[in-house]
């Protein structure tokens, strides 16, 4: 019954209920909840609990049906790991709305409810604060914040019970003067068992009042936004539910988080903006969708927003609002929009700096430097996992691969990877990492996660790098000194072919259909095309530049970009004829390249300039130069989730 777990642990497990996202099993919101934790949730008959009723309301707004996975929450984090994080459900209602609560695995909605500890006493006593208890006895639960708090007060005698419910039982039979327990539990007990005889007063103080959010798996940003929008719209219903379950109103508002301001902003948004940008900003048209400002403009989103709102975008049909809305009101709209930004899938650039032994990380949209992460000596190859969560860096002189959490930007592991690892590649599902060992004439295969070495594949002399075909059936490894390319089947890790190319093959790229491989041959100053089926060189042409290093294909496969170390440029070739169409000067030792997922940006390390150059692939213009560490080598563009 109520109060069973109104302890510090239950604080975390404020309650549960979730909604499902990913599910193309359309129409279902999968919610996890505690089967026996009223007033929050219950799988039994009778009251279902606030979070379950809320889950139903949220599901209805999403035009889905709620389905429940029941799991006890005595140990909240374990419950989350066993349910939500095991993909048994998609939403968990009732988590602390704090950025430091399991930030590596969870994404939280904005707070939708305030709860906290409260003082319960017979209404007749007229108790309004702890001070009024003076000399009396107060029931508390073992190891609860109230117990600790009262331990410091000499004027109040604390009587400890195993849980909130027992504390309330003691109060009900008159054994104590008051109970200092979890407010919702006290309120529900009062409503269901004591006919409202108690008066329940929230108590302000550090660790006593909490804001409650719903949690989802990190990466389920789209569903999080939907749930959050629904919660925002359901504010009146939530207030009514809390009243129905007897929850006392929250004490002093928690530290300013802008939530009230955001709520006001939401109303203003709906009144003035929703006709074109949809109610609660939940726009179905990407062009009108203001939940993507951060994703599009990074930290520049606010400035763009302010300008567009104040001045309008007259030729786009957006009126200016300066005469209608004050800067304060516009600011509150921004805070509302901030609360609904889609945060997953932010594109970040990870750049290895060979001399400064670090990785610099940038927000691709704005070019802002997010972090400089020290790694092992001489970092070179860099690759992101398909799920956007992990980045692998070959720290060549340390003979290891450094593993970076792409969201938190912290080193989480180092894996032995054979001698002198240089180029890196992953198989399609991200379960095998291929590290090219320049001086071992081999490729080391590591199991991911874990890093167990599962194979060593002999290749040619001075292997440089490896790339995977889009269909996942071929891994190509270039050998700089034996002047050939070796093809490996990543499903068996067997070498299945070898093609001799021109001198010093380095960067490679498969065509979208995986049937052709483009190879830059540095000393021959040519690009070679291999027919993958026959292993024959079918085309070869000079690039016009000196020392071609890396190749990239446009998304439609029509253009090829080739970076050049000596001539310091990127040349644009017709991918069919290999005719050179343009040269874009970037700087000395233009080295490895990455492209944005949309193909509209090309990122090139420029080693001797200590920069990363950003090229607009449509206009061919250099649009940005990002300062890097010393001697930048590789770059990976990763959609971080």
């Amino acid at each position, binding site marked *: 019954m109520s109060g069973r777990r109104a302890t510090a642990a239950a604080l975390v497990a404020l309650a549960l209920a979730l909604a499902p996202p990913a599910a193309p099993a359309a129409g279902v919101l999968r919610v996890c909840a505690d089967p026996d934790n009223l007033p929050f949730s219950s799988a039994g008959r009778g009251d279902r609990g606030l979070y379950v009723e809320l889950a139903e309301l949220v599901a209805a707004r999403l035009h889905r049906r709620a389905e429940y996975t029941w799991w006890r929450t005595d140990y909240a984090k374990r419950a989350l790991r066993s349910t939500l994080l095991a993909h048994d459900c998609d939403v968990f209602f009732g988590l602390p709305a704090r950025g430091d609560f399991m930030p590596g695995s969870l994404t939280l909605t904005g707070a939708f409810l305030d709860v906290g500890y409260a003082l319960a006493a017979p209404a007749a006593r007229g108790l309004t604060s702890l001070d009024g208890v003076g000399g009396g006895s107060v029931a508390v639960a073992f190891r609860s914040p109230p117990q600790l708090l009262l331990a410091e007060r000499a004027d109040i005698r604390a009587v400890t019970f195993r849980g909130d419910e027992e504390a309330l039982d003691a109060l009900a039979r008159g054994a104590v003067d008051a109970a200092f327990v979890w407010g919702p539990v006290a309120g529900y007990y009062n409503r269901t068992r004591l006919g409202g005889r108690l008066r329940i007063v929230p108590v302000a103080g550090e660790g006593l009042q909490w804001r409650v959010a719903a949690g989802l798996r990190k990466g389920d940003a789209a569903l999080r936004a939907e749930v959050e929008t629904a919660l925002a719209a359901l504010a009146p219903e939530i207030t009514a539910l809390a009243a129905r379950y007897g929850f006392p109103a929250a004490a002093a508002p928690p530290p300013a988080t802008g939530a009230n301001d955001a709520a006001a902003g939401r109303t203003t948004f709906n009144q003035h903006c929703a006709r074109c940008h949809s109610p609660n900003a*939940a726009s*179905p*048209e990407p062009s009108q969708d203001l939940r993507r400002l951060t994703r599009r403009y990074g930290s520049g989103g606010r400035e763009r927003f302010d300008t567009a709102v104040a001045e309008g975008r007259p030729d786009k049909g957006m009126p200016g609002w300066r005469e209608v809305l004050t800067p304060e009101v516009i600011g509150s709209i921004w805070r509302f929009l901030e609360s609904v930004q889609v945060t997953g899938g932010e594109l970040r650039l990870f750049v290895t700096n060979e001399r400064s032994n670090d990785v610099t990380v940038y927000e691709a949209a704005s070019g802002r430097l997010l972090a400089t992460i020290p790694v092992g000596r001489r970092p070179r190859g860099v690759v992101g996992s398909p799920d956007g969560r992990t980045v692998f860096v070959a720290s060549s002189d340390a003979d290891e691969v450094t593993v970076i959490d792409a969201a938190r930007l912290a080193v989480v592991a180092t894996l032995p990877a054979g001698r002198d690892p240089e180029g890196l590649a992953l198989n399609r599902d991200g379960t095998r990492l291929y590290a090219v060992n320049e001086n071992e004439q081999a490729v080391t295969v590591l199991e991911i996660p874990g890093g167990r070495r599962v194979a060593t594949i002999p290749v040619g002399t001075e292997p440089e790098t490896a790339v995977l075909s889009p269909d996942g059936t071929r891994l190509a490894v270039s050998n700089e000194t034996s002047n050939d390319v070796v093809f490996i089947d990543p499903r068996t890790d067997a070498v299945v072919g070898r093609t001799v190319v021109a001198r010093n093959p380095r960067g490679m790229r498969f065509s979208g259909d995986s049937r052709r491989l483009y190879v830059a041959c540095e000393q021959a100053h040519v690009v070679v095309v291999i027919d993958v089926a026959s292993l024959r060189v079918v085309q070869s042409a000079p690039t016009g530049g000196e020392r071609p290093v890396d190749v990239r294909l446009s998304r439609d496969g029509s253009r090829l970009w080739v970076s050049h170390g000596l001539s310091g440029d990127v040349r644009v070739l017709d991918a069919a004829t290999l005719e050179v169409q343009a040269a874009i000067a970037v700087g000395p030792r233009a080295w490895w390249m990455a492209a944005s997922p949309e193909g509209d940006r090309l990122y090139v390390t420029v080693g001797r300039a200590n920069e990363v150059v950003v090229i607009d692939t449509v206009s061919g213009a250099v649009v940005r130069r990002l300062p890097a560490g010393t001697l930048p080598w590789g770059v990976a563009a990763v959609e971080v989730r």
Partner: protein
Amino acid sequence: MISAVTRLRTAPALLLALALTLPAAAQPGEWPVYGGDPANTRYSPLARIDAGNVSRLRVAWVLQLGSLRSQESTPLVVGDTLYVTSSFGPRNVFAVDARRGRVRWRYSPDVPAGIEQFACCDVGHRGVAYARGRVFVGRLDGHLVALDAATGRELWDTPIVDYTQGAVITSPPTLVKNLVITGFGGGEYGVRGFLAALDQDSGREVWRLWTVPGPGEPGHDTWKGDSWKLGGGAVWGIGSYDPALNLLYYGTGNPSPWAASVRGPGTRNYGRFTNLYTATTLAIDPDTGRIVWHFQSTPHDAWDFDGINELVLADVEIDGRLRQVLFKADRNGFFYVLDRRTGALLAARPFVNVNWATGVDMTTGRPQEADDKRPGLTTPTKNICPNTLGAKNWQPMSYNPRTGLVYIPTLNLCMDMQQAEPAYRRGKLYLTPDLDLDRVGPGGHMAELIAWDPVRQQKRWGNPDDLPWLGGTLTTAGGLVFHGDVRGGFKALDAMTGRLLWEFSTGSGISAAPITYELDGTQYVAVVSGRTFSVPLMIGGPIGSRMVDASPQGGALFVFTLAPP
């Protein structure tokens, strides 16, 4: 060729109704006016395509309209020329060879970029009007122009209304004798609506009828204070004309702003504050612009029950008497039958789920409002059905005198709504409600194509759809109903049963109504495709997303004929 008039005789009781629908100058097989005829029946006597052979319909030709988004145009066919417009103002008016689709001329006015900020509900354009060698085009920028039908050359250009106040023309004008009559949209921007009649030869204004009466005029006292000045009542839909009675009919739009408390008490005890002539059916003497009678379906509107829905004129037998009536499937959810000579109310029944009113008082014509469904200023009013998009929006219905049924594209969406009193700023939306339109009505479907018996006042059949915003309808003597949907599907149904007989995917959502015409013994069916852009944005949320996912934006005219057996 079987003449249309001869065919009509096969349905003797309906002869009068059909005779009325044929304008004197029209040739059989043409589609000379937006609604097919001045009575807006969208009924065609053509019958070569019927239930037995419609499965052989194939694309004959396609015309790309040169704009994407929100195509709403009904083409005209006069002689062997087809006239069709694109969205955006229009960006293009085309005159094409109706047999093969070759472009004869194109008129592309310079409509200002970004004008959508002055158009409440998107940049749709519903088509042109034709008479005596001239094509008349209303434009988003508030101009009405006359073109030479042979060349597309501009003959005159008359500004009707200043678009920068939030006033745009989206519908074709109505042609009566030597007049061209147009209204405009703008009820969301605090315009004061009017109809203007111009001389077809010169473009000079002959009369103007304000739909919100000024001081000293009858009905002025239905407005609180100065609210009439920004009172709305914009006439953005389609007119009908009865030449025998010499009466012009128009539905008027919602009052402005949506918050009724600005215009009166804001409660259902609104007394005299009915806000005439908004959300009203008007019968007008076309020679003078004088109102002959009026019938207001939603007095003191607070829901945006914008009553511009087209008025279908028909002669039907009611209680043993042949009556000259008009039909209106009102945005507010009631299907009205009025005596079109006098405005007398003959019937009013809900044709979809309606909960804001329990019925209509047959004596006063006023809706009997529910206790708790009028949105006020302090708390959201929950679950109002229908929502602001209405039980039926602008997409036209059709009436088939052979089946006696009206084919209506209906909506089944509800809303939560809270009003707020806006401050007026010229050219800005003059409404600030907090709205949630993302609500499906009872039954779980979001739309339904229904066949309504206007005499018995009941639904004969219905085809529910799990996405909203069906296209307008066409019905034919071949026993067929044609309409599109938001996925881009274009369908032929059995007019008696609603059974699906044929479907073709046009690749983008269809809002516009189809037409049919005949040339050299070949019957054609034509429809414009191009998904609505603004409606999913207004709804937002999961429903909006499903509409957007249903099809991409587009802009093309598809023309079909029968393939050989």
